[in-house]
C-alpha cells in the first residue's frame, strides 16, 4: 500500500473499527477474488496457484508504465512495467476497438522462459473476436520488486486470461444504505 492508503486504513480502524468489531455480519466472509479471480484493477494482482491477493507497489521507474503495440501478424503485445497501469492498458485496448480485457496472475520466482506470455480465454469464455494478445511483464518476463515495497521479491507472469463482454447481472447492495 502507499502511505496514503496505509494511513487511511489506520484512521478507519482507529475511528470506526471498534464499532465494526461488534457488528453482526450476514454470513462469514466470502472472498470473491479467490473464487472468481478477475483482477484488473490498480495494483492488485492474482497469484496463480495460491489464490491470494497481493498488492504490488512498484518503485518509480523511468520506463513507461505500459505499452500496447500491434505486430505485423495482427497480434497485440501489452508490455506492463507497473501494475497500476493495468487498467490503463485495458483502456488502451478498448480505445483501439479491441473487445478483450486482460487479467494477469503473478507467481513468485523468475520466469522459466523469458519473453511474453500468450493470453488464453478465461474459464467459461469463448468466441473472443479480437486478435491474439500477449503480455510481457518487465523487460523479459521477470519483475523484481525491491525490498521496502509491498510484494518485495521476484515475480513472473504465471498466466494471462482474456475476457470479453460477458456475465449477467443481479441487484442488491447498491448504494450505502
Amino acid at each position, binding site marked *: *500500500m502507499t*502511505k*496514503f*492508503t*496505509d*494511513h*487511511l*486504513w*489506520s*484512521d*478507519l*480502524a482507529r475511528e*470506526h*473499527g471498534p*464499532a*465494526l*468489531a461488534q*457488528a*453482526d*455480519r*450476514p*454470513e*462469514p*466472509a466470502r472472498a*470473491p*477474488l479467490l473464487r*472468481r479471480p*478477475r483482477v*484488473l*484493477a*490498480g495494483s*492488485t494482482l492474482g497469484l496463480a496457484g495460491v489464490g*491470494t*491477493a497481493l*498488492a504490488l507497489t512498484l518503485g518509480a521507474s523511468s520506463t513507461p*508504465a505500459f505499452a500496447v503495440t500491434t505486430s505485423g501478424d495482427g497480434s497485440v503485445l501489452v508490455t506492463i512495467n507497473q501494475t*497500476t*497501469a*493495468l*487498467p*490503463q492498458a*485495458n*483502456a*488502451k485496448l*478498448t*480505445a483501439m*476497438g479491441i473487445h478483450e*480485457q486482460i487479467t494477469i496472475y503473478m507467481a513468485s520466482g523468475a520466469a522459466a522462459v523469458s519473453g511474453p506470455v500468450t493470453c488464453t480465454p478465461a474459464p467459461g469464455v469463448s468466441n473472443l473476436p479480437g486478435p491474439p494478445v500477449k503480455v510481457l511483464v518487465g523487460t523479459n518476463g521477470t519483475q523484481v520488486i525491491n525490498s521496502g515495497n509491498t510484494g518485495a521479491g521476484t515475480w513472473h507472469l504465471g498466466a494471462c486470461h482474456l*475476457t470479453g*463482454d460477458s*456475465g*449477467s*447481472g443481479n*441487484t*442488491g*447492495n*447498491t*448504494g*450505502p*444504505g
Partner: protein
Amino acid sequence: MPERPVAVRARSRGRPPRSPLEEFEQVYLRNVDVLMGYFARRCHDPHTVADLTSETFVQAMDGFARFDPRRGSDRAWLFGIAAHVFARHCEQSAGGRDAAARLGGHRTLGMDEIEELAERIDAEREGAALMRRCARLPAVERAAIELVDLDGLSPKEAAQALGVSGVAFRKRLSRARSRLRKEHESND
C-alpha cells in the same frame, strides 16, 4: 509517530478473516487502489481525491454490517457508494461549499502522500482522456465503459453498482464500445 492499531499490524492476508474488521480490511485492500483511480480521473486536486476516497470508505465501514456478499460483490457495492459520494461532492461544490469541510475535515495530508496522490492523478491521464472521448455518449453508456474498461469491474459487478439488470447493462456496454470503435476508426 503513534502506534498503529493492532488490526492494522495484524493483517489477515492469506487466511479467512476472523472478525468483521478483518473482513472489511480485506475489502479495503482489494478496492482502495481502484477507487482512488475512480476519483483521480475526476479530480485534479490530491486533497479532493483523498477526501472522496476517505469518505467512501467511512460510509462503507459504517454500512458494512448491512452489506450482504450473497447479493453482490464488495467492489460493486463500493462503487455504488463512490458514485453517491461523488454526486454529493458535485452538488456541494456547485453550491460553493468546501468539500473537505463538508466531509468532516479528514486529517491533513503529508507532503509524501500529496505526491503519491498527484502521481496517481497523473497515472489516470489516459483514463481521463478516454472519459473525455466518451463525453458525447449518454451518461449511462459512459458509466458502463468506465466501470468495466477502466475500473476493472465485471459486467455483472458494474450492473450491480449502477443498479440495473445485467441484460440492460450489456446492451449499454456493447453500444458504447461500438460508438467508441467507430469514432476511433473515423479518426484514423
